């Protein structure tokens, strides 16, 4: 039996870094009549199922998923479930 972990990795632009996707979404929402939206920031989420541990997930973030210079990452353990 092996333990399978699910992690949620959230990648967002650091505050101050341009977020064009957020900006256009804001524009889009306003055009649709939601004029009082003040700000939209976008982020990406990866839900990763594996039996790696937290540290290794962090390694994934550093090597591929996020760019520490412009992006923040946040890892959240979702649940633990056993398979097989």
């Amino acid at each position: 039996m092996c333990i399978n972990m699910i992690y949620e990795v959230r990648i967002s632009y650091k505050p101050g870094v341009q977020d064009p996707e957020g900006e256009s979404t804001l524009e889009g929402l306003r055009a649709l009549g939601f004029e009082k939206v003040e700000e939209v920031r976008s982020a990406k989420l990866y839900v990763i199922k594996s039996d790696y541990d937290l540290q290794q997930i962090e390694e994934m973030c550093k090597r591929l998923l996020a760019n520490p210079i412009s992006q923040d990452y946040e890892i959240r353990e979702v649940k633990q479930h056993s398979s097989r």
Partner: protein
Amino acid sequence: MRDIKFCVLRGPGTNCDIETKVSLEHFRCTAEILHINKLIKGERSLLDYHGLVIPGGFSYGDRVRSGAIMGKTLMKKIGNEIKKFVEEEKPILGICNGFQVLVEAGMLPGFKEEQEVALGTNSSSRFEDRWVYLVNENRGNCIFTRNLKKVLRMPVAHGEGKLILPLGLEEEYLDRLKRNDQIVFRYSYEDGTPALGKYPHNPNGSIFDIAGICDPSGLILGMMPHPERAFHWITYPDWTRKGLKGYGDGYVIFENMVKYVKDNF
């Protein structure tokens, strides 16, 4: 004959407007590139035009989803004008991003008045520019493809062109599209055999290899491939082997659109 005038509609990020305009004007008509803001602000009316083309590009940067912001904005701001335009039986062509806009606006496939299908991220998850073969499967409903030969070649260049039908209702939707003669182009092999999902002949994983559909009236066509880039043989990827043979496969689509207007207005 009265002057024929087309609207080539652009929003921020539209970028295939000029070649689209040139393709239309080849057939002795006027094609005006119009910014969506002019319609929204009421400075111009869509009803002053005989046909509408929504060209390719990245409207609003393709943010949220390709075509979403422009599609939803159009319906919210000038939905009534568009409805009227359609009622007057004027033709609408959406190319690439324009197709995405029409889908997001709920104008295609046009069963109901809301979005019923989607153009999702390519199965490869990549933007891809390549020439593909298309088989023209329309039985005559679509006004854009009359007299068009069976197998065509055109380039696709998109990251989100995979047609997705509602989960669990795929068969039902396909049946309906077929019954209404709404399927126009399918990705195929050189001999016209459908690609059956096989990459790269079907470049994006589109269901039933669908590359273009029209609405039940046949007056609204949306297609991922770019006819304006297949207008002249000189833009074909292998003309240096095959020589120059007049016009390309995209030609007839624009010709039909102009002809329809000339015959009916």
